[in-house]
């Protein structure tokens, strides 16, 4: 009997250690990245780094502004494309479509989530970039290579489709049927019910989905890298090329060790990405948790 209890205690102790180590990974990553970016933080203030437009690492000037702008433009574009499409799709799937359609459609969309980003990049280069170059851009600008914010936005949007659709569908399911029935019994049409009652109730969840999607889009590296043009100038329109922060990291890792302060600068961008995504994630998870507690 004693041996069994002893085994139990020892094993639970070991598991506790594992758990603490894993959980502290968040902290470890943050601390590790911060420690590696210290050299550049000591030489320049954060404001200087963020607002300077000049990116000449060989000369020692590290202005992250073009990359921050690039990231914002591409992410913004993808959100602008994805949110309306996914919202409408989620509403259709959960409110209008028959159950069989739902059971067939949702796993299919989740397959999109399993496709590796490289393949999205290949698709982007083969399909989206020529599409933008030949069919969309001529209406708006004189010349475009197709490697633009728009192309990056489209590819990124498709990548975040499954995330947004599945969360919004789930959120819509948790809204009690009584609410809809009450509204309909008062004479509202189905669309009015959805617009004024269901969506209003689901708004926090929808916002959480958007926030999560933004954080996913922020960090996506390879697919965007392949279609965005990688020109370190802040984009002025969606037909300009962009150079998002993760792409900067990925492209320059090779040279980073040879130039002083370069590696600290890149680690700083990784740290910035980490912190932003961390904050976004925590906010949206907390919102989602509150919703599930409230409606359980």
């Amino acid at each position: 009997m004693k041996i069994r209890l002893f085994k139990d205690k020892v094993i639970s102790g070991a598991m506790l250690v594992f758990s603490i180590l894993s959980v502290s990974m968040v902290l470890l990553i943050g601390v590790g990245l911060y420690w590696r970016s210290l050299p550049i933080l000591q030489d320049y203030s954060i404001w200087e780094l963020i607002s300077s437009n000049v990116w000449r690492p060989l000369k020692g000037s590290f202005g992250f502004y073009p990359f921050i702008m690039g990231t914002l433009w591409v992410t913004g574009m993808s959100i602008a494309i994805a949110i309306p499409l996914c919202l409408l799709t989620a509403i259709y799937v959960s409110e209008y479509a028959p159950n069989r359609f739902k059971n067939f459609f949702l796993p299919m969309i989740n397959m999109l989530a399993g496709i590796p980003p490289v393949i999205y990049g290949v698709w982007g280069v083969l399909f989206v970039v020529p599409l933008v170059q030949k069919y969309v851009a001529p209406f708006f600008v004189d010349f475009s290579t197709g490697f633009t914010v728009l192309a990056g936005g489209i590819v990124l949007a498709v990548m975040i489709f499954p995330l947004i659709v599945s969360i919004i569908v789930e959120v819509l399911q948790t809204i009690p049927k009584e609410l809809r029935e009450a509204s309909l019994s008062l004479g509202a049409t189905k669309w009015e019910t959805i617009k004024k009652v269901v969506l209003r109730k689901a708004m926090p969840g929808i916002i959480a989905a958007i926030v999560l999607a933004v954080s996913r889009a922020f960090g996506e590296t390879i697919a965007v890298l392949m279609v965005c043009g990688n020109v370190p100038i802040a984009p002025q329109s969606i037909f300009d090329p962009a150079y998002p922060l993760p792409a900067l990291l990925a492209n320059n890792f090779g040279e980073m060790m040879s130039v002083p302060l370069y590696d600290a600068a890149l680690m700083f961008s990784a740290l910035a990405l980490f912190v932003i995504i961390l904050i976004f994630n925590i906010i949206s998870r907390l919102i989602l948790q509150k919703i599930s507690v409230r409606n359980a």
Partner: protein
Amino acid sequence: MIGSTILVGLSLFLIIGTVIIKGLPFLSLDMLTKTPNGGYYFGRSGGVLNAIIGSIYVAGGATLLGMLISLPVAIYLNIYLKKENRFARFAKLSFDVLFGIPSIVYGAFAFSLMVYLGVRASLLGGVIAVALLVIPIMVRTLDEVIIHVPKELKEAVLSLGATRWEMAKIYFRQIKAGILTAVLLAFGRGVGDVAAVMFTAGFSDNIPTSLNEPAATLPLAIFFQLGSPIPEVQGRAYASAFILSIFILIIVVLSTLLTNKRRKKS
């Protein structure tokens, strides 16, 4: 509304279709079974076997390492601790957060770790980076599975006087399918990810024979081939992408079968 649904669904077929159409013409038995010969990136003969095997090694090693850590953690959080326990809730939140961190941050962090530990860009580095990436995924999946085991089992086992470890062993048999799903999911992610392996696994034209050698990975191979100016090589990139897709397709089909089997049982 229906239009947007069609658009969203269509995109899946667009992607798969493009890869198949562009990749199939360049696919050949050579690609699957040979490593690159000299000048491969300039159009000479050879294949991507180095990348295929390298990816399997990296993803496999990372999944193994990840499972060694994730399984105890998931069991501890769900079976040893009560559900309302603050540490358990905090841990689950942390893992959700870790799940959302992009792979490039993991790559950068793993690289710093490697520099600190003196490990060079190698199979080992890639395995560590991908394992870190994959642990939150596995913990989350295992979490879901363990929660769904019916409460009566837990109560029956405890009422017979079992210790928590013995209870864990009983649970283990129930969740075997879930463990396989987690493994497949992790493997799929490990095979397809570029950013984590870019600076940690290196790249090589040979199949690695030890943990300290650099390993080629399929996504990186696609990436490099795509960057070449020679259309032959670019075509090979599409074929490699096709190979990667087949890999992922197998994994997805396997895991869907497993989930359905599990659902039918319960």
